[in-house]
């Protein structure tokens, strides 16, 4: 089989490229779709347990078919266009949110060579695509001509601007240590055991664990998760940016949110937790990445069902008065250490 593939690759490179493209697209679509569906299930189960309930249990064993039922329900709803909206932007916005989430997965490696398209500037590409997500929310809110959506989108934008800064500062200090933007190389540098992971490279910067925490908090804020879910504060803003959306328009926003969560958690695992390296240096493989990824996602959910929502001032103060100064100090220390040693 492999030799046949190699033969095909030599004789018809164009065909193989197209084949590879199709396989990659199908895999990414399936991965994102399945994740979005079953993370909702996981979240509901976890929320149930934390509140001493069972969570979904009626549809299928352990409620495992619940996401399917929800999906069918959403798809069979009428795609309703409210009066006075900007039709083009209204229809475009959910797709923009979803597409950018998909695009992030293109450069994320899940294992040795397990990547759709390896880029030297992979990390940069992910940040670039992730920030378009905000534009999608803003456009959706603007197009649907609803005051709640507008307030929500204003919050999303200022929140994302505020948290992009400490996030990128931390990434900058990390890049001084790794010296590359290629995600593959970043993971390769952390091979060995957990003491080689970036989060514990104290010789590079004694503030590395703090940097990890800052990155984690920023990811929470960037993906609009509790306690920073001011954009979607049900009690104040109905459903935030997607108040006016129904049917699959809403579904796409919703899936995009979970897809972004997966992107964020994968990025944390790759940048700080050694990607697909085993903590003890044996049997590295994608399973380790998935383990770390889902552990992080469960933590995010755990946080959601523990803390109440912050106020908007609290959110901005945390970024400008705590995270950014610490991130700057971290940048300085790392820079000095890199220069000295």
């Amino acid at each position, binding site marked *: 089989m492999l030799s046949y593939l190699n033969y095909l690759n030599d004789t018809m490179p164009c065909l193989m490229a197209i084949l590879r493209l199709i396989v990659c697209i199908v895999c990414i679509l399936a991965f994102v779709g399945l994740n979005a569906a079953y993370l909702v299930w996981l979240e509901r189960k976890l929320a149930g347990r934390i509140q001493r309930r069972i969570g979904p249990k009626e549809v299928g064993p352990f409620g495992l078919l619940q996401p399917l039922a929800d999906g069918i329900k959403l798809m069979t709803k009428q795609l309703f266009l409210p009066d006075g909206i900007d039709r083009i932007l209204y229809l475009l916005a959910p797709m923009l949110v979803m597409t950018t989430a998909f695009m992030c997965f293109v450069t994320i490696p899940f294992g040795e060579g397990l990547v759709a398209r390896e880029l030297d500037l992979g990390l940069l590409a992910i940040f670039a695509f992730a920030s378009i997500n905000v534009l999608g929310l803003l456009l959706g809110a603007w197009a649907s001509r609803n005051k709640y959506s507008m307030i929500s989108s204003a919050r999303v934008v200022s929140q994302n601007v505020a948290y992009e800064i400490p996030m990128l500062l931390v990434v900058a200090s990390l890049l001084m240590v790794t010296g590359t933007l290629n995600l593959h190389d970043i993971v390769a540098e952390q091979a060995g055991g957990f003491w080689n992971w970036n989060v514990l490279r104290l010789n590079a910067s004694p503030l590395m664990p703090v940097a990890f925490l800052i990155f984690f908090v920023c990811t929470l804020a960037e993906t609009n998760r509790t306690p920073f879910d001011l954009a979607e504060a049900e009690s104040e803003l109905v459903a935030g940016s997607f108040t006016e959306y129904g049917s699959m328009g809403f579904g796409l926003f919703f899936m995009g949110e979970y897809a972004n969560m997966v992107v964020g958690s994968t990025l944390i695992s790759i940048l700080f937790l050694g990607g697909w390296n085993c903590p003890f240096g044996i049997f590295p493989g994608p399973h380790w990445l998935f383990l770390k990824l889902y552990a992080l996602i469960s933590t995010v959910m755990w946080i959601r069902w523990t803390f109440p929502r912050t106020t908007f001032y609290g959110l901005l103060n945390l970024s400008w008065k*705590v995270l950014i100064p610490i991130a700057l100090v971290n940048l300085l220390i790392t820079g000095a250490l890199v220069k000295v040693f």
Partner: protein
Amino acid sequence: MAAYIKSILVGTWSLIAGLAITLRFVFKPVVTCQYPHAVPKIPDRYRGHIDFVYDPATCSHKCIVCGMCQKTCPSGCISLEGEKLEGAKKKTLSVYQLNFTTCSLCGLCVEACPTGALTFSKEYNLAGFDEKEYHFDLIKRLQERP
């Protein structure tokens, strides 16, 4: 500066304490009742709409058509009629209608009844499409009871 750092540390610690609490809850037993698969026990003093008490001696109700319940009901939701059957000394109950839509479950009728013919039912599962479904015929209900 010291206060600033202290506030960060104290804040972080309180977050961790909060997470520990919810984590402990994950492993505690479930406390919800899986209604409708399982039904919780209804307390003895639960007040559903009023109903006749079954009297095994007469295999019927104990009502003597005195009309006390009708008079005492502050919402006026009881309407009853009695008729004198041939040969009988007293009246027998022929109609007993309860309009449950205005009943306030105050229980005055139950207290007023001299023969203890009325009681609260344990009916809590009421749903209907029409107001008419809440006009109960208590005689019929008693006859239909197993």
